[in-house]
């Protein structure tokens, strides 16, 4: 394989691995890496294999770009989908990211669950509600063969159930989003910026969070 074809192959891999980033941004990144290779290749003491090794595998390089940009967008976004995607990518990089991802999952499930209950109330008015009894305090929809209501267990909110669930669900979604945005900003410097940093004479590899 010639030098040119190795470089073209690397750039094609990088372009593929950057899928999901806008076309203009992707081409800009590929062009910059291409020019870096040309610049370094101008130094006769360095061969193409060394240059490509210095850049690291194309997939890994693309992953650094994608993570940085996604977390950056998520910090200013209120889209749960975008925030979840950023949290999922962060989760792959270390323990803190994993914890953040589970906060996102639990928070959005709780919020989404309450909103769903609010929507189900008009469809199943007798079975959806806040059920209170000697051993129960449940925001739920009661299904199956159980009697919907018993003298000991009864629904207390009536149609107020809808706005109450809508408010609790919305608050849970907003609180989760704000908390995640705060965590992403707070740990901005901990996002995986560096594939490796080489201290003087010491190679230290490691993606891990920047902590």
């Amino acid at each position: 394989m010639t030098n040119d074809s190795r470089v073209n192959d690397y750039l094609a891999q990088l372009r593929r691995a950057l899928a999901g980033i806008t076309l203009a941004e992707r081409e800009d990144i590929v062009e910059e890496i291409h020019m870096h290779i040309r610049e370094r290749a101008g130094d006769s003491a360095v061969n193409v294999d060394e240059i490509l090794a210095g850049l690291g595998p194309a997939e890994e390089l693309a992953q650094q770009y994608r993570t940085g940009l996604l977390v950056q967008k998520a910090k200013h976004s209120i889209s749960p989908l975008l925030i979840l995607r950023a949290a999922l990518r962060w989760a792959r990089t270390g323990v803190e990211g994993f914890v953040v991802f589970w906060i996102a999952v639990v928070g959005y499930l709780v919020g989404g669950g309450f909103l769903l209950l609010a929507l189900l109330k008009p469809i199943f008015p007798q079975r959806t509600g806040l059920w209170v009894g000697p051993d129960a305090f449940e925001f739920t929809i009661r299904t199956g063969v159980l009697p919907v209501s018993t003298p000991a267990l009864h629904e207390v909110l009536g149609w107020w159930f809808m706005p109450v669930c809508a408010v609790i669900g919305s608050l849970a979604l907003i609180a989760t989003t704000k908390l995640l945005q705060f965590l992403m900003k707070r740990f901005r410097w901990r996002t995986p910026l560096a594939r490796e940093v080489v201290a003087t004479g010491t190679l230290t590899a490691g993606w891990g969070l920047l902590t």
Partner: protein
Amino acid sequence: MAKQIPVAIEADSSEKWEAQMRKGCLEMAVLASLWHGRLYGLEILRALERDSQLILSEGTIYPILNRLRAEGLLQSQWVEAEAGHPRKYYELTGAGRQRATRMAEMWTEFSAGLGTLIEPVLKAARKTARDNGRLRKELLL
């Protein structure tokens, strides 16, 4: 009784700590390298290596520059170069200058405070080194 830490583990922990410390300074170092004007990626790498002993792998610097640009701290521009191919130059934005200034101030305050704290540690280390040197001389005589 003090717990004995195996030397290999201690050395490994020190290396990790040093790497984490360097990673933490990376953003400040990149912003500071652009303080005097625009540079392209390879120049930034060389400036970091020359001035701060931060030697990054070549694949590391570009995603960092891209993220800092997305944060509005840097702006970039393709410029036709004499080298025969264009180069993408980066320069600090107003927000980037503010961030670099703030980081430099925080770093100075932090390191000054820490310097006072670790001074006794360094004094003790220097004294031990002197004592060891003196003992070695005596043994040689």
